């Protein structure tokens, strides 16, 4: 144990928002420049999972928890093979990691993967700014020779916006692969990867499901080629309004009445497939403390969220859709945002949040059981 990582600690860095607000701090992780959509995450644990969640692709993540990196980086907790965030903003990075599973420091890992970050800024002021003004584009610039303010702002404003972005294909697997069932295999599920997190197929595998993870470009034929008992649509980055291809695949699945489960982006796709619209939230839900009510039981679960878009469906009535009656099954108690949909006449449901957790509480793990019982019901 040594007091290491003074590496980039004294190199200046600047964070510039597209509305011109600027924060000055010190470089963290890789030195250079990066752009993305500025979003804040309120989780106090789970930075490794957050960094490797493909849904954060093209986003610069601001951690509201001040101390980040305390438990270092291990080889078990990542949710995918790489870090996806385009930039990382923390207040007080750890100088030494402390955990029996830690392999290296977070600072090293960020540098190794070329992730540009900034530390030592007033992250709370930045969070409040985004809360009041909404998510927006941002740039982080670090190094000993920084461009002038005007140049930096212009560069931020040239970066692409999240609205209208079609990103699934950029993060999803290129080749199909199989996650075998743990123990006796009971079901086969085709999982369309729109940016899937590693924990999701794991949660299914734990329940005796063999998961065939398919690329985002998979067609209905590809899906049915694995002879699935159920079909799953994953989480992922980007604007659901652009996801025309997965929407059409989902419609095919719905018309065949195959048991269907969607998470996050998958929920928005179900919404669209049913004919609902989607919209961008002012600053999104990103954290692991969000109260969601299961409207069928009235129970409240504390859940992990990471979504900037939401489905626009009526909360107070059952809707008629091309696939029969549908209703909002889950709602966020903080702001009444739609957090889940279910069809009443056929086996399909989805949630906007993350029952697989990682990071986050396990309160909603029952949804995987619900998916299993839909498949059992179909078989019976």
């Amino acid at each position, binding site marked *: *144990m040594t007091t290491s990582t003074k590496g980039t600690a004294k190199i200046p860095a600047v964070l510039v928002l597209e509305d011109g607000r600027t924060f000055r701090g010190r470089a963290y992780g890789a030195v250079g420049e990066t752009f993305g959509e500025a979003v804040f995450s309120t989780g106090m644990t789970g930075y490794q999972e957050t960094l490797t969640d493909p849904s954060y692709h093209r986003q610069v993540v601001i951690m509201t928890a001040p101390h980040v990196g305390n438990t270092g980086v291990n080889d078990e907790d990542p949710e995918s093979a790489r870090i996806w965030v385009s930039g990382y903003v923390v207040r*007080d990075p750890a100088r030494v990691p*402390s955990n029996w599973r830690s392999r290296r420091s977070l600072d090293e890992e960020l540098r190794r993967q070329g992730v540009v970050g900034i530390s030592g800024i007033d992250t*709370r002021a930045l969070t*409040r700014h985004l809360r009041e003004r909404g998510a927006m584009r941002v740039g982080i610039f670090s190094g000993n020779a920084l461009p002038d303010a005007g140049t930096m702002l212009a560069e931020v404003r040239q970066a692409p916006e999240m609205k209208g972005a079609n990103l699934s294909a950029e993060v999803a697997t290129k080749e199909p692969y199989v996650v075998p069932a743990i123990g006796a295999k009971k079901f086969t599920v085709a999982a369309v990867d729109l940016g899937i997190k590693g924990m999701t197929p794991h949660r299914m595998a734990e329940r005796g499901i063999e998961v065939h993870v398919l690329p985002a470009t998979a067609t209905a034929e590809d899906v049915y080629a694995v002879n699935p008992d159920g079909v799953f649509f994953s989480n992922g980055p980007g604007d659901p309004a652009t996801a025309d291809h997965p929407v059409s695949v989902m419609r095919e699945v719905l018309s065949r009445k195959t048991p269907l489960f969607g998470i996050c982006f998958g929920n928005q796709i179900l919404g669209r497939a049913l004919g609902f619209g989607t919209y961008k939230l002012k600053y999104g839900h990103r954290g692991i403390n969000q*109260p969601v009510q299961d409207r069928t039981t009235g129970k409240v679960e504390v859940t992990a969220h990471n979504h900037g878009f939401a489905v626009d469906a009526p909360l107070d009535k059952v809707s008629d859709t091309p696939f029969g009656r549908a209703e909002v099954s889950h709602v966020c108690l903080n702001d009444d945002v739609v957090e889940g949909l279910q069809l009443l006449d056929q086996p399909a449901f989805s949630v906007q949040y993350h029952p697989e957790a990682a990071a*986050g509480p*396990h309160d909603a793990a029952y949804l995987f059981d619900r998916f299993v019982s839909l498949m059992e019901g179909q078989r019976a």
Partner: protein
Amino acid sequence: MPKRTDIQSVLVIGSGPIVIGQAAEFDYSGTQACRVLKSEGLRVVLVNSNPATIMTDPEIADATYVEPITPEFVEKIIAKERPDALLPTLGGQTALNTAISLHEAGTLDKYGVELIGANVEAIHKGEDRDLFKEVVEAVNAKIGHGESARSVICHSMDDVLKGVDELGGYPVVVRPSFTMGGAGSGFAHDEEELRRIAGQGLTLSPTTEVLLEESILGWKEYELELMRDKHDNVVVVCSIENFDPMGVHTGDSITVAPAMTLTDREYQILRDIGIAVIREVGVDTGGCNIQFAVNPEDGRVIVIEMNPRVSRSSALASKATGFPIAKIAARLAVGYTLDEIPNDITEQTPASFEPTLDYVVVKVPRFAFEKFPAADASLTTTMKSVGEAMAIGRNFTEALQKALRSLEKKGSQFAFTGEPGGKAELLELAQVPTDGRINTVMQAIRAGATPQEVFDATKIDPWFVDQLFLVKEIADEIAAVDKLGPDILADAKRHGFSDAQIADIRGLREDVVREVRHALGVRPVYKTVDTCAAEFAARTPYFYSSYDEETEVAPREKPAVIILGSGPNRIGQGIEFDYSCVHASFALSDAGYETVMVNCNPETVSTDYDTSDRLYFEPLTLEDVLEIVHAETQAGPVAGVVVQLGGQTPLGLAQALKDNGVPIVGTSPEAIDLAEERGAFGRVLTEAGLPAPKYGTAFSFDEAKTIAAEIGYPVMVRPSYVLGGRGMEIVYDEPSLAGYLERHAGLIDRHPVLIDRFLDDAIEIDVDALYDGHELYLGGVMEHIEEAGIHSGDSACALPPITLGGFDIKRLRASTEAIAKGVGVRGLINIQFAMAGDILYVLEANPRASRTVPFTSKATAVPLAKAAARISLGATISELRAEGMLPRTGDGGTLPLDAPISVKEAVMPWSRFRDIHGRGVDTVLGPEMRSTGEVMGIDSVFGTAYAKSQSGAYGALPTKGRAFVSVANRDKRSMIFPARELVAHGFELLATSGTAEVLRRNGIKTTVVRKQSEGQGPNGEKTIVQLIHDGEVDLIVNTPYGTGGRLDGYDIRTASVARGIPCLTTVQALAAAVQGIDAMSRGDVGVRSLQEHARHLTAAREE
């Protein structure tokens, strides 16, 4: 599902007197709960024997019983009030135990009272070690995580040696079965120790059985605070990580929120276990707290224990997160679910979520070992701290350093100058957890210790160790820079360095550093505790400082009054001062001011964000207060700062604040100084023609020697400028005087030592009064039961005085007025008098709220602290009389003849402390205050009120049985009548030979018992100490024999503490107790609420 409609009235049980382990946090919780229940339209009946609480203010509940919290008295209250339900989870262990007794005795069934917020089975499952072990096993079977510490039961040394292998080696804990108070248990680090401890244990155990348990010393320790509603919704309100690893009671540990060194995977495992435990135990609604130990080598989790109720930790968690656990627990108990309760802070979102923090909270304990020099000061699993300070910062170093300076104790802040000492010795010292170990670690780091060495010595997590290195590196940079520029100052401040620390490192004055810092524009901003890391807008101005960019203090228009609180609880400065601050806040808010509270004590009502318009959770140092005044001045007009209600802490800042241009309201700092400085105060007395005992002030032994000789021994010696009689002693001769000065060199380095004539056999009198510059309002006159020479905080007293006549009151009034006027008081003043023979001496005057203000206010039904706050801001006594805040006519000196008698009794922490040999510490009262809390007994006659005070403090006085009497020679005369009374009540008297002789000569039948020094008799006659230990004595009267003989009674008094037998150490207390026993044996002890007493008193006043 909204509130239950079948409950119309609820009985809430408080926690009684402040004791170590059960302190002001239960006033905070209980007050919140009572307010919530009342706002729900329920009739709230409250019982709490502690008058210094906000919860026992008459407006908090509908019927407030300041009565002993015993099953007998609570049953009387139930019979009278017939509540529908009993809420037992908010008054600590006291309330829980009382509720269980009432349940088991069938009282609750008899009166149809439903237990809400907890069921008996759940309480047993949570509290019984064996049942809880089963709970943990059941949880493990369900979710595959969590276990209890592994153990094996052994009946022979062979079993023991095999057991160690089964447990995986040394160290192991040895616990002999069925021994009293865990006698004979200990840690064995090797076979030799094991053979010794276990061998002894097998002998000690009546069943020749010892339990060997794996040692989890040095593991990481965590706590979770959970809440559950009747729909089985569960949330984790807060995670807490202990800086000190396993082995130190969590109340004595430095603790941090949120947990700092857990990955999400590990945290979620703790969360899953916590939720499974609360379900398995069956806490239907409300909060609970669960403690975990985590092995730093492999993450193995052991569930240590749970508290199925609101606790000290839940109060801390509430303050740390802004999530008011007690308030919500009360709502859940009457039928609401979490999602139906709004989050107070955001107002928009529900309480069914888990707070997330964008700051770090550090709590540090405050100890009082200096008051108990004989006690073993190492920290163990028995809690020994008397208070705590909490600080909030944007990172750990900032929060830690703020917390350490909040302790207001010399040496509590890290020091970076001077010789640190030898590395090896420091590291060795750091191995044993003690008060201030963290400072030892810092010195070890300065002395060159490596992080690994620090970890090896202390097992403090490497991340925390690195944070200490970070602090030290910043200190090095501060020392190394050419001059204090903005960068280094900002860096230092971001890591919590105070101006004073920076000044010390740079060899400058504190105010110079501050000037430089201000000139460079390095000032704090204030952030909000909002439960949600800024995800939603906060509506509650609950602030902490940080050296960040953006402040969240909103502008305001109303003039603000800033009230400085009293900081961490300590002996001599406790909850009573918080009480006065809270009252000031309420009164000034009603009078149209915006109230701003500053305090750093998480246990208190003052640091509830509901109490004042704005709350600054900040240290009470000059620097921190000046910055708050600055921030509030930027926000709007500031009418002034109130310093006279929070005890010595704010008082000590008064002059410096004024010198920095801060408006101080009420009594001026100069007047405060006048009363503190003996020379000036002496002139005030002389001018008013008032006698004071002969005294002098000395800076050296030579001066002291001369003065003492002039006054004549015995003399009372003490340092000036202290509270609670710190360092005060009665000195009988010159060598003792020399010894005293040597021992207290640290206390008298800046201020002189005061030497007073000691008034033997005088009656001590306390007066609380208000003065507005023209008129005096005598708040109350308290007559001490113990003689002068025992600290007023440790002495029982009665109000109205029981032996003083109208002429005495008149003299007291005149003297009080003369002093208040001479000093220049605007607000409260407390004066201690001593009546010796017929002369009324002035002992001392304190121009501030005293410890007795809450007691006086309750006994006379007049809110003195509120009135004082108003007077500070310019109101006159006649205006307050007209408003109705003070009675229209008369005052506390003119109480009607049939006014109730209130008795205050002090509660001592003896049972908490042991010396290094494991023996109890002596219980004799003296001029240095050592009580932690107090109770009040109120009734129409003195005897009953006194009996109630004893029941509330120590358990009921016996009405029959055996009384042991052993008194000093000077007390032998005054003992005869009360002793005769005891016999008349059917007591058998026991006495040692000397006392027995006197009693027998006076015709009082007495049995002679053997002294401890005489040992067991030839026919196995037990000594008195053995008799006490064997439970054969019901009442003990033992007055100490001056200096030389003091040790004789030591064994008797410590035995009485160990067995919980009432022990009277003054003959005056015996006389009072006899009156109490008389009242109790007549069996006419009733209960009456404060509201009824007040109605009675008001009616009598109007006549």
